[in-house]
């Protein structure tokens, strides 16, 4: 039996992009159905214990892995809030040179001024502010000391948090609900304005009639089928899953770009043994950055976590591992991420994504240089031992791709926006080129690596899309058109 629903807008995915679009549309008076493949998460179920939370809050227990050289772990969130539920909360605006490049190479008119009104709106919704040194904790203080002694550019990160007490488990479910992920910000706003949120709704295909998308077919947890008929459909299933749904529906393939151009931020981290206690899990794990080498595509950000997390990430084995973990209170950690030039792809095998991605020579060189700089940073900070994620005896400059232990974050680009239908999947307004009635609102449309964490970019683009669908200008925050206040009702 199929349950039918009719609505103005059907939004698929309640993560960083979909939740924003749904809230903005609903608050303007539109009828919205918001479908989420995963469950809603009750913060009372957050235990601050990594294995349990990886199983609960991440797709595939956080063990989604790319195929290529080297294999790379690509953790993705699942459920209401999407990856914003399990990210570190770092907020960067899209760097102006990146926007300029998008204009030149992809014909996207997203200049700094046009985007700033969207950024302001999102930042206010998420209570974005800079981490204080006190809240950042001792792990950040180590990185700061090293950067200052070396004269490297650095600073405290801006995050979407309110009332944070530095529980140290942002990526395992914030037990204080301080991190302002979309599951506790935009989704409640959408629902409060009348949107219907349906969780555990697995969208199987898009309904297409006479060259126009008319909604979606989904299967609910109990096996019931759901047909949502909508005037406009917005896909926000994330960079890995949006292209799979499009391909399954035989849409958006004309340019040949669907599922291609996958960009990641390959990342790794080093540990150091400090003379004094650090207690890395006390404070905000990702709170401090060093951007001295950002122009080369290498960015450093602090990372940290409880012993189970550190033990998994510590690049040692056997007795050496046990010896270092016994001194966990004195361990510091810093991550590096690379703004990549490598490109991968995603396609489906059955209903599972197959993600292909191999590090090119330029990115391998960035990782090598980044690791060398991390060693330098920790030694300048006074570390007595530095543990780089490399096999014993391998120096950073000699590392081969297969020597690296990489994770990656921030997948982008698999349904990239390009003003030219022959070069991209969506246009500058994020409408899919090949078909009417379908827009995209997630990282898949972002056409290149940003070099910084992308959640604000995705949310700002989603804000811009929502107001484009409403045929209204994004209200300026300075003009007093505040967040959460209903605008004049839609006339249609």
């Amino acid at each position, binding site marked *: 039996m199929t349950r039918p629903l009719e609505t103005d807008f059907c939004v698929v995915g309640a993560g960083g992009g979909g939740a924003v679009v749904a809230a903005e549309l609903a608050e303007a008076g539109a009828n919205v159905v918001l479908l989420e493949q995963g469950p809603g998460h009750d913060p009372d179920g*957050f235990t*601050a214990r990594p294995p*349990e939370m990886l199983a609960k809050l991440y797709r595939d227990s956080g063990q989604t892995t790319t195929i290529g050289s080297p294999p790379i772990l690509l953790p993705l969130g699942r459920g209401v809030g999407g990856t914003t539920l399990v990210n570190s909360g770092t907020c960067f605006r899209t760097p102006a040179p990146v926007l300029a490049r998008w204009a030149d190479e992809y014909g996207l008119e997203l200049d700094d001024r046009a985007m700033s009104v969207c950024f302001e709106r999102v930042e206010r919704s998420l209570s974005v502010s800079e981490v204080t040194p006190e809240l950042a904790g001792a792990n950040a203080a180590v990185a700061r000391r090293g950067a200052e002694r070396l004269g490297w550019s650095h600073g405290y990160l801006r995050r979407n948090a309110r009332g944070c007490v530095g529980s140290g488990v942002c990526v395992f479910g914030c*037990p204080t609900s301080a991190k302002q992920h979309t599951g506790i910000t935009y989704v409640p706003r959408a629902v409060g304005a009348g949107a219907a949120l349906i969780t555990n709704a697995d969208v199987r295909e898009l309904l297409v009639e006479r060259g126009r998308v008319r909604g979606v077919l989904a299967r609910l947890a109990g096996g019931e089928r759901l047909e949502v008929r909508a005037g406009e459909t917005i896909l926000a299933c994330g960079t890995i899953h949006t292209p799979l749904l499009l391909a399954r529906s035989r849409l958006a393939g004309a340019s040949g770009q669907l599922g291609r151009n996958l960009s990641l931020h390959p990342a790794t981290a080093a540990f150091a043994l400090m003379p004094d206690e650090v*207690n890395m899990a006390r404070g905000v794990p990702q709170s401090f950055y060093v951007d001295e080498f950002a122009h080369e595509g290498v960015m450093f950000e602090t990372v940290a976590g409880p012993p*189970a997390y550190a033990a998994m990430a510590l690049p040692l084995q*056997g007795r050496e591992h046990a010896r270092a973990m016994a001194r*966990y209170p004195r361990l510091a950690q810093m991550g590096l991420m690379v703004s990549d030039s490598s490109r991968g792809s995603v396609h489906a095998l059955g209903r599972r994504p197959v993600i292909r991605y191999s590090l090119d020579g330029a990115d391998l060189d960035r990782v090598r240089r980044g690791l060398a700089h991390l060693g330098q940073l920790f030694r300048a900070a006074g570390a007595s031992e530095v543990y780089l994620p490399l096999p014993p005896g391998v120096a950073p400059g000699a590392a081969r791709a297969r020597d690296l232990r990489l994770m990656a974050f921030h997948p982008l680009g698999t349904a990239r926006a390009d003003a030219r239908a022959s070069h991209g999947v969506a246009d500058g307004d994020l409408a899919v080129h090949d078909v009417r009635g379908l827009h995209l609102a997630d990282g898949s449309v972002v056409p290149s690596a940003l070099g910084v964490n992308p959640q604000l970019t995705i949310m700002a683009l989603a804000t811009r899309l929502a107001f484009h669908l409403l045929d209204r200008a994004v209200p300026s925050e300075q003009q007093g058109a505040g967040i959460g206040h209903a605008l004049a009702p839609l006339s249609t």
Partner: protein
Amino acid sequence: MTRGFESFIDRAPWPERVALRALLAVERRPRGARLLARAPLLSQALGATLALGRYDEPRLAACLGWDAAKVVARGRALRRAEGRP
């Protein structure tokens, strides 16, 4: 192994799940460690996974200054006191 660690393995994609279970079985055999030493990448992956489970044990974590239950209790109290979601 904790229940959380079991569910961490159970919810992994099937190739990883099958591989991890097989490696765990090999590791428990008398000559398992020696066998695994011949495959450093596999050994490393297994070591990291086992370490995740081992250091999740509350008593071991407490020795290192981490009390998950206390962190959670503080979080819940703050949420309730301030009416957060």
